[in-house]
């Protein structure tokens, strides 16, 4: 059985580790440090942790001020509150001033599960992607989360990193290298391309197995940086495979699918099918039930690839 590991758990571990090397790291949370795992850092470095209470806007503004004073603030809460409630302070006080704040939010997507639509963020990638100066990253497993954090702590400028409540299968080992703005081809293939991010990378790989049984070999790309998106890799994939399926645990409006379609439609005309949450809110249920409900299973991805193959010239 594939090993699984919590991506948000990894955030807590890595942050506490980085805290030793980077004395300027400070961490802010809005009363969810147990869930976002910033509590690990808080216990180790109590003087550098600020629980802001249930006040996301103030958390973001304070993080901006800390960055202006030379600190490296990491601000965490659930994805919908971090990016939705505090969107305008992020825009005005972080992105516009180009401040060195890292927003690392957990509980992205519908696999939040039982808490339901109010807590399932299906808009955060769109909300962050539209902001000038913002980098947007969705790691595909715990190893990648670790590498992402090592990278963004040394990167000057605003970054949004999304993680999830559920555990993800471990896809990478320590030899993996993460670079901002670079997608990773996990599986070669020429029949079509599946571009995924976050947990959906694992689902895409499972879909690849199903398609292989039909003799179809899709190229599978982990597009962990959604902004700046790896346009060169996408154009190459579009030209070489002739059709693209995007897969994300986010609204099909404004997220990875949109980012891919924007690049591909300007550069080369191949069919693009977006798999994600259709224009609707989430609902309560177990994560696996919800993946089925919202059409985010390997079987759904397989069908989308077959559809794209039909449309290929």
């Amino acid at each position, binding site marked *: 059985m594939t090993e699984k590991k919590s991506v948000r758990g990894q955030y807590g571990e890595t942050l506490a580790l980085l805290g030793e090397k980077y004395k300027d790291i400070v961490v802010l949370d809005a009363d969810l440090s147990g869930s976002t795992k910033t509590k690990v850092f808080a216990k180790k470095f109590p*003087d550098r942790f*600020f629980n802001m209470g249930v*006040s996301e*806007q103030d958390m973001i503004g304070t993080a*901006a*001020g800390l*960055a202006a004073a030379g600190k490296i*603030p990491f601000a965490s809460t659930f994805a919908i509150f971090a990016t939705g409630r505090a969107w305008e*302070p992020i825009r005005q*006080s972080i992105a516009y001033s180009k401040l060195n704040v890292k927003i690392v939010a957990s509980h992205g997507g519908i696999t939040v599960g039982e808490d339901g639509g109010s807590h399932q963020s299906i808009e955060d990638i769109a909300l962050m992607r539209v902001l000038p100066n913002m980098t947007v990253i969705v790691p595909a497993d715990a190893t990648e989360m670790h590498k992402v954090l090592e990278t963004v702590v040394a990167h000057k400028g605003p970054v949004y990193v999304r993680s999830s409540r559920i555990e993800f299968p471990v896809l990478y080992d320590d030899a993996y290298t993460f670079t901002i703005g670079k997608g990773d081809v996990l599986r070669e293939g020429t029949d079509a391309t599946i571009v995924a991010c976050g947990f959906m990378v694992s689902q895409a790989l499972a879909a690849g197995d199903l398609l292989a049984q039909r003799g179809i070999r899709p190229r599978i790309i982990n597009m962990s940086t959604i902004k700046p998106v790896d346009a060169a890799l996408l154009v190459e994939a579009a030209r070489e495979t002739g059709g693209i399926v995007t897969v994300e645990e986010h609204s099909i409006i404004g997220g990875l699918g949109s980012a891919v379609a924007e690049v591909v439609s300007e550069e080369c005309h191949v069919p693009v099918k977006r798999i994600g949450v259709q224009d609707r809110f989430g609902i309560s249920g177990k994560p696996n039930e919800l993946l089925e409900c919202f059409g985010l299973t390997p079987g759904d991805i397989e069908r989308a690839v077959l559809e794209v193959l039909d449309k290929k010239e």
Partner: protein
Amino acid sequence: MADSNDSKTCVSMECSREEALQRLPEEARQIRIEILKMLHQSSSGHTGGSLSATDLLTTLFFTELRHRAEDPGWEGRDRFVLSKGHAAPLYYAVLCRFGYIHADELCSLRKVNCMLQGHPDSKSTPGVEISTGSLGQGLSIANGMALGLRLNENNARTYVLMGDGEVQEGMIWEAAMTAAHYKIDNLCAMLDRNGLQIDGTVEEVMNIEPLADKWKAFGWHVINIDGHRFEQILDAFKTAKEVKGKPTIIIAKTIKGKGVSIFENKVKYHGIAPNDQELEQALKELGHKKL
């Protein structure tokens, strides 16, 4: 930087209270003149709230704030956040007076590709600590700066200027809790209580009273002053530095459009720049010869 220059550039505390009280009215008058000329040139911008806070900001920059115009990023500088970002013309006039901005730049306010954006932009203008303009965010930012300075064991202080309409923003009260909770005493907030906002009087639009009681209830040390009496402003800054274990707010009662009779206490001049005739009269009242 040579030590001999420090006395010139480290402005604050360089003159006695008596000297400051003699000098400040004239400095404030000059700054008001620059504000009005700047606004007239751009035919756009916020007159009333720039003039109401002129005496406060002039006093802050001339007597209180430790800063170096030739080294805007100097680590030891006190931080200032203009939370009521629409008073940008005032900020620019003050920064110009200290040499952060060349006087020639003032006529470029709000023009395409200019250094002086409609609201303060830290990326465009030397001396502007952080971009503001969307109300309600400056106090959180100032808290963060003050916490950062404290962690860095830097004894610099943080000052923030808010408007009175601005405190209708909920985020201000989140930040008010934070400052008290974390005992941020290297922070001094100023509230420009001019009583007017763009849609009318603050009392009519959304009453904020009892204002002092609110801040006290949130755990702040509150100082009420007349924001146009320099001796009261000086005393308030002095007290603010002495208060330990809690943040301080100076609630400064001011007159919107202060210094020019046709603008004083007029809602209309919140966001309107003076036309030719208005500028002429304004400069006359301020004892300035024609352009």
